[in-house]
């Protein structure tokens, strides 16, 4: 039995790997855009523009109040009827992960920037740095240590949340697993393998986040 289970896993590995590649692609794109959007959010939120802050606050609260799965359905069902726009479910998932992730990373970046001493900004401005120079050379590099550990944590959440894409029909790793189960009825084995897959991807990231947080706690 044990060997047949092992053989089955070997046989189905290509199909699972195909699904896993989709999962990782969605997650990686989500992380990339979440990071870019998050840094933009953090910079905009620390400019001190009142109107801009209200807009960002509304964006943040909408993504905090409405669960990601609901956003997934809103985009998946909503884009076609509201904007006559039909995008593949893969890109729906990337879009939602990016927007949600950007709100999460954005709050982290904003917090890290806000925690820097005011003198840093003032000193930068007084030597005549332009806005992008101030952020690019002075503020963001200093905030980097503070924002990296929590951002890595958000990455693990993005990877875990990417699993929801199966519910709008993306053929990612869970769907691949379900297709194999339909053929073989080996649900314990396959779901066990899926468990392991996500754990192997996420655990090193959460461990790294913890180590970095401890190491940089005092600097």
């Amino acid at each position, binding site marked *: 039995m044990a060997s047949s289970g092992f053989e089955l896993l070997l046989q189905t590995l290509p199909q699972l790997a195909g699904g896993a590649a989709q999962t990782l692609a969605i997650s990686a794109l989500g992380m990339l855009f979440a990071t870019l959007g998050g840094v933009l959010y953090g910079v905009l939120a620390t400019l001190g523009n009142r109107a801009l802050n209200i807009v960002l606050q509304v964006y943040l609260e909408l993504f905090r109040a409405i669960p990601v799965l609901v956003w997934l359905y809103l985009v998946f069902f909503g884009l076609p009827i509201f904007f006559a726009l039909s995008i593949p479910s893969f890109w729906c998932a990337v879009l939602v992960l990016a927007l949600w992730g950007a709100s999460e990373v954005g709050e982290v970046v904003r917090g890290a920037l806000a925690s820097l001493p005011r003198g840093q900004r003032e000193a930068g401005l007084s030597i005549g740095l332009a806005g992008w120079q101030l952020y690019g050379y002075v503020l963001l590099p200093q905030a980097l240590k503070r924002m990296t550990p929590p951002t890595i944590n958000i990455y693990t959440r993005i990877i875990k*949340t990417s699993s929801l894409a199966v519910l709008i029909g993306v053929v990612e790793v869970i769907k691949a697993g379900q297709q194999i189960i339909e053929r073989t*009825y080996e649900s*314990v084995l396959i779901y066990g393998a*899926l468990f392991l897959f996500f*754990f192997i991807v996420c655990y090193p990231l*959460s461990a790294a986040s913890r180590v970095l947080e401890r190491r940089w706690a005092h600097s």
Partner: protein
Amino acid sequence: MTLDIAFILSTLPAFLKAVGVTLQVGLIAIATSLLVALVNATLLVLRTPYLWRLVKAYVELARNTPLLIQLFFVYFALPSLGLKISGFSAAVITMTFMGGAYLTEVLRAGIEAVPRAQLESGRSIGLSEGQLLRHVLLPQAGILSLPALFANFIFLLKETTVVSAVAVPEILYTTKNYIALYYKTYEMLTVLTLLCVLLFLPLSLLLRYVERRLQHGQFGI
């Protein structure tokens, strides 16, 4: 495009029931998670031999895998081992599995955040271990972990939408059902969005308020 108000009104009783299911799953899961977390955090803090390692392993496993996989495992894989359970039970069991791990971490962090000097001064004025726990450690740890606990409660409540995947008739499942039956996508998405904002936004704003208040409290010490 106009909203079919009459249709929305006709679905309201069903959505009211769905909100009930969402709250039911969420509140039960919060209560059971808290129970699991209290036991686990005690085992962790006391370093109970062997058991604390087991707790650590459980916390890492539950926190590093998606709720959806955990849910599918309980709902689809356990029956083939002879354990057949309803969608509702699967939802509560899975959310307790995940929530218990998150809350364990919160409580542990809260207990560890109490300054050691507090324990030492408690001992030095002759408090027994029990008194130390009751009067010094737990009250302070409780306050320290309150915002994180509250944040996790809201998180768990929002995660109930995921259990729609195993046909638990909560708000998202009800929405999908109506869309599939009547193609009233526009109306149903509007109702779903409004429900989420009504249910979760006040909680999220309250959390922000509590966090700010407690921060002021801590500066006062």
